[in-house]
């Protein structure tokens, strides 16, 4: 490349940087400030500060018990934080009374890990439940909305009179998504949407998450263990680490960046999680269990050596 071309490129990148800094930041739909959650002496979340702009899809990854689901539940007000603030579209959730919070929940859609469909209701009643609570949007009928959402998640209308127990796991998750979408929320929260599904159904759910985002321009927060899924659906990945195993003063968010940046990360714990390797966790578990169990686990691979 000629010297002149290099100067032009450098100038272009400088200009981009300046423009980036001068242009207003995209407004955050969800923001947490120093969010902490403790149950007795156990700290689940410690000083978590996240800002999620409108339209972004964030995947929160991390090993079981690191507080991912609790973070999600705290964001929608299902669990009250011990300290810290949560803002939704600029409104501090703590300042809202019960009625205002109920009104605000119209703008949230929550897809639960096992769909959390009401056993006593039919699929139709399950999908219609938010409409019964908040009313039907003008110009639409209940059955029209239900059929539209069902069609979007790729389910036939003959499931409507069935009970949740008559559907497969993948179908239940799709019904859960249809229910969460019925009021066209601004924020969609997915709690491990692909857990327990076969690879094909997992990919169907991933595609549905991507399509939903494109169609409704919805902001999404996805809790997942599935790295393939996280890379496919997310604009941004955040990795949480169990507070109890952090070094003093360390942030619980070990990684916050794009899926591409995940490949160049140097933190050993992030690399191990992304690669799905037990690493020193295996040694820690063995130490917890005592020497007696070492022999039975000797066939397992050695943890990788730490990079300097």
């Amino acid at each position: 490349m000629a010297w002149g071309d290099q100067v032009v490129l450098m100038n272009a990148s400088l200009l981009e940087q300046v423009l980036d800094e001068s242009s207003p930041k995209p407004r955050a739909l969800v923001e947490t400030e120093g969010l902490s959650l403790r149950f007795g002496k156990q700290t689940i979340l410690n000083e978590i500060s996240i800002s999620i702009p409108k339209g972004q899809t964030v995947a929160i990854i991390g090993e079981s018990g690191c507080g991912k689901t609790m973070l999600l539940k705290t964001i929608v007000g299902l669990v009250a934080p011990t300290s810290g603030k949560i803002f939704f579209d600029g409104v501090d959730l703590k300042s809202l009374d019960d009625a205002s919070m109920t009104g605000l929940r119209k703008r949230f859609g929550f897809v639960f890990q096992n769909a959390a469909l009401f056993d006593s209701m039919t699929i139709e009643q399950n999908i219609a439940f938010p409409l019964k609570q908040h009313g039907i949007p003008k110009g639409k009928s209940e059955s029209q909305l239900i059929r539209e959402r069902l069609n979007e998640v790729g389910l036939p209308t003959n499931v409507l009179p069935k009970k949740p127990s008559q559907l497969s796991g993948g179908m239940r998750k799709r019904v859960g998504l249809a229910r969460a979408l019925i009021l066209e929320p601004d924020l969609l929260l997915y709690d491990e949407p692909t857990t327990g599904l076969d690879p094909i159904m997992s990919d169907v759910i991933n595609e549905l998450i991507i399509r939903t985002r494109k169609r409704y321009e919805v902001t999404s927060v996805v809790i997942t263990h599935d790295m393939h899924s996280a890379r496919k659906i997310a604009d941004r990945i955040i990795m949480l680490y169990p507070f109890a195993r952090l070094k003093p003063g360390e942030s619980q968010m070990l990684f916050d960046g794009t899926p591409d940046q995940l490949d160049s990360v140097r933190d050993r714990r992030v690399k191990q999680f992304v690669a799905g390797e037990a690493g020193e966790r295996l040694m820690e578990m063995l130490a917890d269990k005592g020497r007696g169990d070492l022999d039975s686990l000797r066939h397992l691979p050695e943890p990788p050596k730490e990079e300097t």
Partner: protein
Amino acid sequence: MMSENGTSTNRSRVPKGLEKIAVAWGSVVVSGLTMLGDISLFAIQMFRWMFTAKPKKDTLLPNFYSVGVLSLPVVALTGTFIGIVLAIQSYDQFRNMGLETRLGAVINKSLVRELGPVLAATMLAGRVGSAMAAVIGTMRVTEQIDALISMGANPIHYLVVPRFLACVMLIPALTVMADFMGIVGGYFHSVIVLGIDHAQYLRNSREFVSGFDLFSGVFKSIVFGALIAVISCYHGFHCLPGADGVGRAATTAFVQSFVMILALDIVLNLMLNGVEYALWPGGTKLF
């Protein structure tokens, strides 16, 4: 007496076994009082929701059906059996005194005032209360309660208020049914099987069973119904995870409801007897 480090040694005089017992009983008392406080707060929350928002018809009707219609056969059947058992047990004693025609009065008064409401409440606690705890507990464990909240529904208003209303409003009907079937069972055994004079049996029944007896039974049943609903829903809401947690919630709900029914029965009897003596000092006497 002070030890070397300045602390009192009185503690060391208490035998270790006794200390352990005191600590164990202390923790039982503390946890019992904590639970009582929790249940009271839960009930206050429920009452607040009951008067601030009208429950929906589609949540009320299934609960009314489950509490009222489905409990009726078992309450009627057990009521009949109790009436017959009372007749069998009392007959010999009354015959020895030559008072067998008064059997109707004893059976009917016991049923209307005491056994009818307690029996209906016990059946309700066993059939409906434990099911309430299990259903709500399962909803808690499978995140259905979280789903309710996330969709803007209050779980106390949606799940507890309809169950409470169903229990309170329909337990009087179940009690009257238990009373009626017990009276029929007692009459059948006394008159048809034991051959007691029909006219005298009925006359004594009418003479010694007052309207206040019926009121007492129905009043007590309403209190029992409220108690069953609150205790059962509370245990469902505070269910621990897993199948074991749900099972434990259902069992605890029944056991606590049953114990509280009997404990409260003593208090209510003392109270109602006081009212009766104040209103009718002479009263009606069987002998």
